[in-house]
C-alpha cells in the first residue's frame, strides 16, 4: 500500500507566513508542516503558541525538519557543526520529526555557515564527506534523512550529474530526496532543458517530499537576451510548475509530503496572502486528482539502516577546503564576471575537478550575485 500524500506548508516563525496560512489552518486544509528548525537555534525563546503548533503536528507524525545551515560539503569539520548536531539531537527528543532534510551544497560565506549553498563537483572526496555528514545527521535525529536538489548549478554537466550524485550520497543511509520542482524549473530555464529528460535523471524512487514555490527573473548582463530564473520564493507559483507537479506525482511511488514554500517577506499584502492560499488549494486539487495514480506496493520508509554508526574521526580534505575557501573569496569579492574569471584562472581552481573553465559566464555572474548578497548571513 502506498502512503497517502500529505499536503502542507513550510511554516517558519514569521508573522506574514502564519497570517497567510491561518485560514488554511482554520479550515483544516494543512495536513503537515515543514519547519526550518536551525533558523531558531540562536533564539533563546520560541513563543509558546508556535511551539504548540509544531507539537500538534509532531504528535501526529506530520512535522518535518528542514535544515539550512549545516553545510554538508564543507571540507573541514567545524565546532558549529558539532553544536548544530547537538541542538538537533535535543530538539528531536522534544519535537520528533518524521524526517530531517538538508540542502545539497556548501555555504559560500566566510565560515561556511553564512551565505548561500553552492554546488561541489562529484569526486571521491566530496562523496565521502557528504556521506559522512549525512550519517552524522541521521545519528543525531534517528529518523529518515534526505537532501534537497539544488536550484543553482555552475554548469550543464553539474545539472546532468545531480541526480546520480544524490543517489550515491543517500544510498548508504537509505536516505530520501526532496524534489524541489521550482529548482528543477530554474535548471530547465537556465540550461534550456526539457522537463521529461531532467526529471528522469533523478532517482525518483527516493523522492519522499516535493517542494513547490515561486521565484523571479533576473536579467543577465552577459547575455542581454537571457533572463536567469532564480528560486527566490517571493512570488506566485508559475503555471508550468503546477503542470510539473501533476506529472511528477505518479512518478514518485514513495512520495509522502508536498510543501508550498514561500518567504514571509513576499507575503506582505492581502493580495499576496490570498495568492498564497490560492496556490496552496491548487496544489491540494492536483494531489487529489493525481494521488490515486501512485503505484501500489510496499512504500519505502527510508528508515535508518541498523547498526550504522558514524566513525569517531570526521572525514576532511585540506585541499578541497582550500578550494572552497578560495572560491568563496573570489565570488564574494570579484567586481564582475571578468574579474572573477581572471581570479579563477590564477587560483588553485584552475584545471581542477571544479572545471571552472566550463562554467558559462552568465551562471558565474549569477554565482557572484548570490554570494555577494548573502556573505554576511541573513
Amino acid at each position, binding site marked *: 500500500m502506498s502512503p497517502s500524500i500529505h499536503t502542507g506548508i513550510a511554516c517558519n*516563525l514569521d508573522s506574514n507566513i502564519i497570517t497567510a496560512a491561518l485560514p488554511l489552518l482554520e479550515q483544516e486544509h494543512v495536513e503537515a508542516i515543514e519547519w526550518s528548525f536551525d533558523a531558531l537555534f540562536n533564539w533563546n525563546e520560541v513563543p509558546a503558541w508556535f511551539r504548540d503548533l509544531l507539537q500538534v503536528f509532531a504528535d501526529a507524525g506530520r512535522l518535518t525538519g528542514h535544515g539550512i545551515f549545516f553545510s554538508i560539503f564543507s571540507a573541514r569539520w567545524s565546532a558549529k557543526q558539532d553544536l548544530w548536531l547537538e541542538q538537533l539531537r535535543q530538539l528531536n527528543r522534544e519535537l520528533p520529526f518524521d524526517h530531517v532534510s538538508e540542502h545539497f551544497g556548501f555555504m559560500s560565506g566566510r565560515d561556511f555557515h553564512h551565505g548561500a549553498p553552492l554546488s561541489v563537483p562529484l569526486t571521491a572526496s566530496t562523496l565521502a564527506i557528504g556521506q559522512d555528514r549525512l550519517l552524522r545527521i541521521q545519528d543525531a535525529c534517528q529518523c529518515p534523512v534526505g537532501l534537497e536538489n539544488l536550484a*543553482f548549478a555552475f554548469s550543464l554537466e553539474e545539472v546532468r550529474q545531480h541526480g546520480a550524485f544524490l543517489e550515491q550520497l543517500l544510498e548508504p543511509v537509505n536516505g530520501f530526496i526532496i524534489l524541489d520542482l521550482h529548482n528543477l524549473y530554474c535548471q530547465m530555464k537556465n540550461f534550456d532543458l526539457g522537463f521529461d529528460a531532467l526529471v528522469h535523471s533523478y532517482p525518483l524512487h527516493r523522492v519522499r517530499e516535493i517542494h513547490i514555490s515561486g521565484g523571479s527573473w533576473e536579467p543577465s548582463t552577459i547575455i542581454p537576451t537571457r533572463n536567469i530564473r532564480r*528560486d527566490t520564493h517571493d512570488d506566485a507559483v508559475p503555471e508550468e510548475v503546477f503542470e510539473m507537479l501533476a506529472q511528477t506525482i505518479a512518478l514518485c511511488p514513495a512520495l509522502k509530503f508536498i510543501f508550498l514554500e514561500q518567504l514571509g517577506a513576499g507575503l506582505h499584502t492581502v493580495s499576496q496572502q490570498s495568492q498564497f492560499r490560492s496556490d496552496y488549494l491548487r496544489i491540494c486539487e492536483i494531489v487529489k486528482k493525481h494521488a490515486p495514480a501512485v503505484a501500489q506496493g510496499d512504500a519505502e520508509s527510508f528508515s535508518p539502516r541498523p547498526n550504522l554508526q558514524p566513525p569517531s574521526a570526521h572525514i576532511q580534505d585540506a585541499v578541497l577546503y582550500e578550494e572552497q575557501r578560495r572560491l568563496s573569496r573570489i565570488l564574494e569579492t570579484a567586481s564582475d564576471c571578468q574579474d572573477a574569471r581572471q581570479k579563477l584562472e590564477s587560483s588553485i581552481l584552475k584545471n581542477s575537478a571544479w572545471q571552472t573553465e566550463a562554467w558559462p559566464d552568465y551562471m558565474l555572474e549569477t554565482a557572484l550575485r548570490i554570494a555577494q548578497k548573502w556573505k554576511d548571513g*541573513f
Partner: protein
Amino acid sequence: MKLPKELLKAIVLGIGIAATATVATSCDKVEITTSDCDESCKNEETCVHVLKRQPDYNCPACGMG
C-alpha cells in the same frame, strides 16, 4: 488536520505580537541601525539612520536565491 480552537486563538494573538517582534526567518526585515542613530530617532518611520534592506527577499535557504 484539525487544530484545537484554543491553539488557533493563541496563534491569532501571537501573530499580533509577532508582527512587530518575530522576524527570525524573514530575509528582508533586517535593519541596520548605524552608530549615528541615538535613542531619540529609533522610530523607523522617521529615523534617517536606519538603513532598510532593499526590497529583495531572496533567501539562501532555497539554494539559489
